[in-house]
């Protein structure tokens, strides 16, 4: 820190690395592989988190579910009216939705009932509903589907219609009236929108009931207050706030990447041992070199510094290589194989594009997780090398 950078020493270090090419390439490759895996995992989880956060942003402030005997069950429509009487509640919209399991393809569709005269609970959905004539859908018994759904149906030869099996076991033929793509692809991909009456029929639900109710409030700061009032009014309803969902998403993905990191730590430890072993086993040629350097007037400090340059160059190169490979793998190739582990949803869900997410903090995190380990592993071997007795080479 006191003197300026010694470029001659740096040059010597680069030379020294190149002279022992085989050994160093081996280390470089293993280390960049490690960095690559680590960065890929963190990129994927960060990217999914970003996507989910944008989903969460559009979610209603409060979702109310009714629980009977610990199981979620339908809510009476009349409750929506009653909720409006609570001060601060802007709107209360009952939703009719559920999952439909398509046995042949082994996937779940999200089926959502829509109504022309009702506001939708979120903007993106409202846009889609506005673009179609729900009245016409109702008349022709039609539906509009997400791109992923469309693809799965086509693979199973349903080009213009689909036969739902209703709760009573009857066929319900619904024509495909349109396909939508949504900017928020993660959730829209597997979605089917159809008129509420059709949805009631498929699910076999009472028409006076809804699946759940979403509540919008005027002032987000009043949410805890409103939640406590709702709990008083309907003790059998559970309120899930936007914040709850955001935190649980973040936790799930932190947990998943944390799990990977724990595995990574084991790899890193193994790597630490390998590096330690590799760098402490000096060949007779290397020992002789150190002896020469000492004889011509290098101090222990100079030798340690040179060794530090070597390990910094190798680890930094490996870091950059692994990082670039991971960026390419995750954002260009869309992380084949690895992303499946993170998704864990139905087959349909993975069909979205990982949004690009990269920032300085991520860079720091990756750097701190990789380069210091490498350098730490070389600390003691470098020192040991510097303490070699120079007079041995003179024999």
């Amino acid at each position, binding site marked *: 820190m*006191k003197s300026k950078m010694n470029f001659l020493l740096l040059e010597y270090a680069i030379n020294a690395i190149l002279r022992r090419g085989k050994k160093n390439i081996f280390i470089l490759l293993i280390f960049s592989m490690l960095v690559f895996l680590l960065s890929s995992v*963190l990129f994927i989880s960060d990217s999914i988190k970003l996507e989910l956060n944008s989903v969460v942003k559009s979610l209603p402030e409060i979702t109310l579910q009714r629980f009977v005997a610990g199981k979620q069950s339908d809510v009476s429509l009349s409750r929506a009216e009653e909720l409006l009487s609570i001060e601060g509640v802007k709107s209360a919209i009952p939703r009719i939705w559920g999952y439909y399991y398509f046995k042949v393809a082994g996937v779940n569709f999200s089926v959502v009932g829509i109504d022309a005269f009702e506001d939708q609970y979120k903007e993106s959905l409202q846009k889609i509903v506005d673009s179609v004539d729900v009245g016409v859908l109702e008349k022709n018994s039609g539906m509009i589907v997400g791109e992923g759904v469309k693809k799965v149906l086509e693979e199973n030869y349903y080009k213009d219609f689909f036969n739902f099996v209703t709760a009573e076991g009857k066929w319900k033929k619904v024509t495909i009236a349109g396909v939508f793509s949504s900017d928020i692809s993660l959730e829209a991909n597997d979605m089917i929108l159809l008129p509420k009456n059709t949805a009631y029929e498929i699910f076999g639900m009472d028409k006076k009931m809804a699946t759940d109710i979403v509540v919008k409030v005027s002032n987000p700061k009043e949410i805890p207050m409103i939640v406590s009032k709702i709990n008083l009014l309907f003790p059998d309803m559970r309120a899930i706030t936007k*914040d709850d969902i955001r*935190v649980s998403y*973040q*936790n799930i993905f*932190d*947990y998943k*990447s*944390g799990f990977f*990191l*724990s595995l990574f*730590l084991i790899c*890193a430890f193994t790597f630490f041992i390998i590096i330690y072993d590799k760098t402490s086993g000096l060949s007779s040629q290397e020992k002789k070199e150190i002896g020469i350097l000492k004889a011509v007037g290098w101090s*222990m*400090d100079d030798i*340690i510094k040179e060794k530090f340059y070597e390990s910094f160059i190798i680890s930094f190169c490996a870091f950059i290589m692994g990082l670039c490979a991971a960026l390419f793998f995750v954002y260009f190739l869309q992380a084949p194989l690895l992303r499946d582990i993170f998704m864990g949803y139905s087959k349909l869900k993975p069909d979205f594009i990982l949004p690009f997410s990269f920032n300085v*903090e991520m860079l*720091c*995190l990756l750097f*701190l*997780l990789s380069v*210091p*380990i490498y*350098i*730490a592993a070389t*600390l*003691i071997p*470098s*020192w040991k090398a*510097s*303490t070699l007795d120079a007079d041995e080479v003179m024999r």
Partner: protein
Amino acid sequence: MTLTPEIIAILMLDALFLFFALIAFVLSLRILFKWDIRSTQPLQYALEKQSYLVSVIIKYIFVLKLPLFLFYIFTCNKLSNIITGAMCASGVVNSVDFGLYLMVFKIINLYLFGFWLLLNNADMKDELSPFVRMKFLFFVIAFIPLLLEIILEISFFASLNISKIVSCCGTLFSLTSASYLSLLFKVDSSLLVGLFYFFGLMVLLGYILKNIPVFIFANLMYVLFSLIALIVFFSTYVYELPTHHCPFCLLQQEYYGVGYLLYISLFVGTFYGFCGGILEMVTHKGHTKFFKISLFFNAFYLGLVSLYPVAYYLKNGVWL
């Protein structure tokens, strides 16, 4: 216990530090008791070699600790997203009883390790290695706060509870808070700000008079009152809100990260002032270069922090 990638990174580096610091500690003890510069026995030669390992290890720890400190604050900032009620790092830091002590130890350790390196440098520059015993004794002592910091940090992350509701900085740094921080707000802020400028002047005076004890004392008080004045008075002008006193929110992007600039210049300034002064007392050698650096960064901090109220006054014609 929450294991985010950031926490794992910090804990992993803690483990590395602990491992290496233990080696350095054992070697330091050996050197401390067995060192004899006149001896020509193999033991003495071995000790001389080992002293290099200790300095390599300390350099490694210090060089990583600097960025890691900022990374720690960043991690707390990020954790505030998942901890209910926390708006910035201060909520997270204070969510555990000893969070503040951890912070204090982190800062103290930066000063201690930095000072060790200065001492080591002075020692290496002298053919007689006059400070060998002193520097290893110093490390043996400095090892304790390092150990405490690591233990506190591990238990800090272990006891972080994401479902616990914590206070945000708005309540922590206010009159109504129950902590001793609130005592500060009971004192007239103009007195505290006055003291801040007073010690700033005293630093300058100590420099002009070349009076080292005054210089050290002034630097010590300067860093203390800088932080107090920042919390009580100057931060409100950065936020342009009379009730917002948080020292952590300064680090957020909305304020262009001015906090990093402030804290780094304050640290560099007082580090060279304080540790450079002590070094001069110990070595009896002039370190005018350090004092110049110290003076420059202290003045930079003072100027930057004073700029905010002045700019506010010029813009709005009133004080907050």
